[in-house]
């Protein structure tokens, strides 16, 4: 090969190498960019799935928690309904007791005596239900006579609105001891409900 031929071949060979290097550099650069992008996109995709898992767990937990709440509420409502039925029945049985049971009179006497003792000396006024006013005063007077001692007991002719029991008041009406069965029911209701809960639903 001539000198000129060698010289031109060197020029072209060098240009070829340079061209190859340019392409290699571009390819390396794009490969690196692609790899970097892949890492970023993978992270992004992982974050999408991670968030979806967290959201899904929350949705599932919420569904279960709502169901638990619904179930508990339904159970409570059912128990309350049963308890209400029992408490209604207690009131019915109390009314029956007042109407028919011979043990009611001694109980009424005790309620009156307790009220009289709470009020103290002097004269007291005893208020009864319509039913008791109609049937029990002579018996009651006899039963309480010993226990009340010096206290003078007057019987009000105005009936009280109650299932049974009595209201004992001072003559001026300023002090009143309410010993009705309704009042007892009201006062004992929380305790009765606890007992009913234990008796009905306890193991």
């Amino acid at each position, binding site marked *: 090969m001539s000198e000129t031929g060698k010289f031109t071949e060197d*020029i*072209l060979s060098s*240009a070829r190498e340079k061209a190859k290097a340019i392409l290699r550099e571009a390819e390396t650069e794009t490969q690196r960019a692609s790899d970097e992008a892949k890492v970023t*996109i993978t992270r992004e*995709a992982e974050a999408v799935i991670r*968030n*979806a898992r967290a959201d899904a767990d929350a949705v599932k937990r919420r569904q279960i928690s709502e169901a638990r709440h619904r179930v508990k509420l339904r159970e409570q409502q059912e128990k309350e309904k049963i308890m209400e039925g029992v408490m209604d029945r207690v009131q019915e049985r109390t009314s029956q007791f007042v109407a028919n049971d011979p043990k009611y009179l001694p109980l009424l006497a005790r309620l009156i005596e307790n009220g009289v003792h709470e009020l103290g000396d002097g004269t007291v006024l005893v208020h009864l239900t319509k039913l008791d006013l109609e049937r029990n005063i002579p018996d009651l007077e006899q039963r309480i006579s010993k226990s009340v001692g010096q206290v003078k007991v007057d019987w009000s002719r105005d009936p009280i609105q109650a299932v049974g029991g009595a209201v004992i008041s001072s003559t001026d009406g300023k002090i009143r001891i309410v010993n009705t069965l309704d009042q007892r029911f009201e006062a004992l209701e929380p305790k009765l409900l606890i007992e009913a809960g234990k*008796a009905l639903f306890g193991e």
Partner: protein
Amino acid sequence: MSGIETVKIIVDAEKQAAKMINDAMNEASAIRKKIDSIVQTQRREMLAEANSEAASIAARAEEEGRFEAEQLEKQSTEALKAIASRASARRDATVEKLVTMMLQVE
């Protein structure tokens, strides 16, 4: 070969070399441009796949949650039947107990 011919050959070779490099640079530029589009496509595909997986995770979780909730409701219905039946059996005795408490006056 005359001097002029020699110079001409060298100039042609220089031109050819410059073209080679210029072509390579153009090709490199095209490669760089293409990568953006490839990355965008790759991103779109991977995110679409991730979103699709996310949707099926959500659907599966919702289904599982619904199933467990239904199970709880079923168990509760059975438990309520047992409670009601036990309470019904104990009802009369409970009423008597409460009435006794009510009417117990010291």
